[in-house]
């Protein structure tokens, strides 16, 4: 396991490729995962290897408190996340502009990085990506509360038990992160970027969102505000785009990094229905 000290925190990092059989593209892609019940493995067995096989240098890391990275008690604001990524790039001696991919909350770090360190970022891909907007901190805090409440909830608990001890361990680890650290308070501490700051972004943005996702509006707003945004909406999909459509995402990313000429690959929904997300806000007890 590769550990890198970045911004004072030990981060678990995996770096793949480029494959020896292909000519290196010279481009570095950094993949940023989502919050709490996520880690770098979401990318490791899905997008990372095809991107490395195409000649790219692919960097994956566990956010602080997640996966195999160190879990300090504090330091979970969006600013900390951006500083961790900046520190990681410095520690890895990556000084050329990189391509960022952010899934869910990872999108907020990617956009924040592009705003705060524009010289470091070549482009951003948002997979159901959030970014700081008015009320986003409260929304994230509510989602964290949903995790801790959800594990007590009979319906969700049964869903976890049916999937075995592995899923139960994952859920418990998420609850521990929330209970043992300042993350629930820290997510509230974020100022949304001004629309003018977003409008000033000159980098290309690839925004991929599910048509049935609660987050889709973020993609539409990016398309309105940032001139270089290419929005792809996948019909009927909810927030779990990465989980449900990884092979298609590989195709789209390879098209994107090959210069995104013409139209993106066509999305063909699989025959089997998508598994709906187990959690919903309806599970939260009313205030």
């Amino acid at each position, binding site marked *: 396991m590769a550990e890198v000290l970045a911004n004072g925190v030990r981060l678990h990092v995996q770096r793949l490729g480029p494959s020896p059989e292909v000519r290196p593209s010279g481009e570095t892609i950094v993949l940023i995962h989502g919050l709490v019940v996520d880690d770098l*493995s979401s990318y490791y067995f899905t997008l990372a290897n095809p991107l490395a096989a195409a000649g790219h240098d692919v960097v994956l890391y566990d956010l602080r408190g997640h996966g195999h990275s160190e879990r300090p008690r504090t330091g979970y604001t969006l600013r900390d996340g951006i500083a961790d990524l900046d520190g990681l790039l410095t520690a890895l001696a990556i000084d050329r502009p990189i391509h960022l991919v952010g899934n869910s909350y990872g999108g907020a770090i990617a956009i924040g990085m592009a705003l705060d360190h524009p010289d470091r970022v070549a482009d951003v891909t948002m997979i159901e990506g959030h970014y700081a907007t008015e009320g986003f901190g409260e929304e994230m805090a509510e989602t964290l509360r949903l995790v801790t409440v959800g594990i007590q909830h009979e319906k969700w608990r049964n869903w976890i038990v049916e999937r075995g001890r*592995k899923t139960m*361990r994952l859920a418990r680890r998420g609850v521990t992160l929330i209970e043992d650290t300042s993350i629930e308070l820290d997510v509230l501490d974020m100022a949304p970027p001004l629309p003018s700051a977003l409008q000033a972004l000159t980098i290309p943005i690839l925004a991929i969102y599910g048509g049935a996702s609660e987050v889709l509006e973020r993609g539409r707003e990016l398309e309105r505000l940032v001139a270089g945004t290419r929005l792809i909406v996948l019909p009927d999909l909810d927030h779990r785009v990465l989980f449900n459509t990884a092979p298609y995402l590989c195709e789209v990313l390879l098209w994107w990094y090959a210069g995104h000429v013409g139209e993106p690959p066509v999305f063909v929904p699989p025959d089997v229905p998508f598994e709906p997300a187990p959690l919903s806000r309806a599970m939260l007890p009313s205030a």
Partner: protein
Amino acid sequence: MRRHLGAVIGDPELIHTPITMDTTFGSDLELESIEFVALADRLRTEFGARVNFVAFLSEKNVDDMVSLTVGDVVRYVAECVREGAVETKPVG
């Protein structure tokens, strides 16, 4: 393989599970995805780029992953090492 698995299995209740060639990573060892990452990392460190466990797993769907056995991985590693040995054998 037993040594590598002992190092990556996170659940203390499972660490003493007997490991045979038929032991499954899914239902027997209940390996989490991040533990698979650690296993892939250890195999890469020991055998180098000739054992691309990530590529091996990338070709598998969810059902394949659940039923994957220790024997499947041992055979895959042995095949990679054998092919690597043939490729690097000096000519003449």
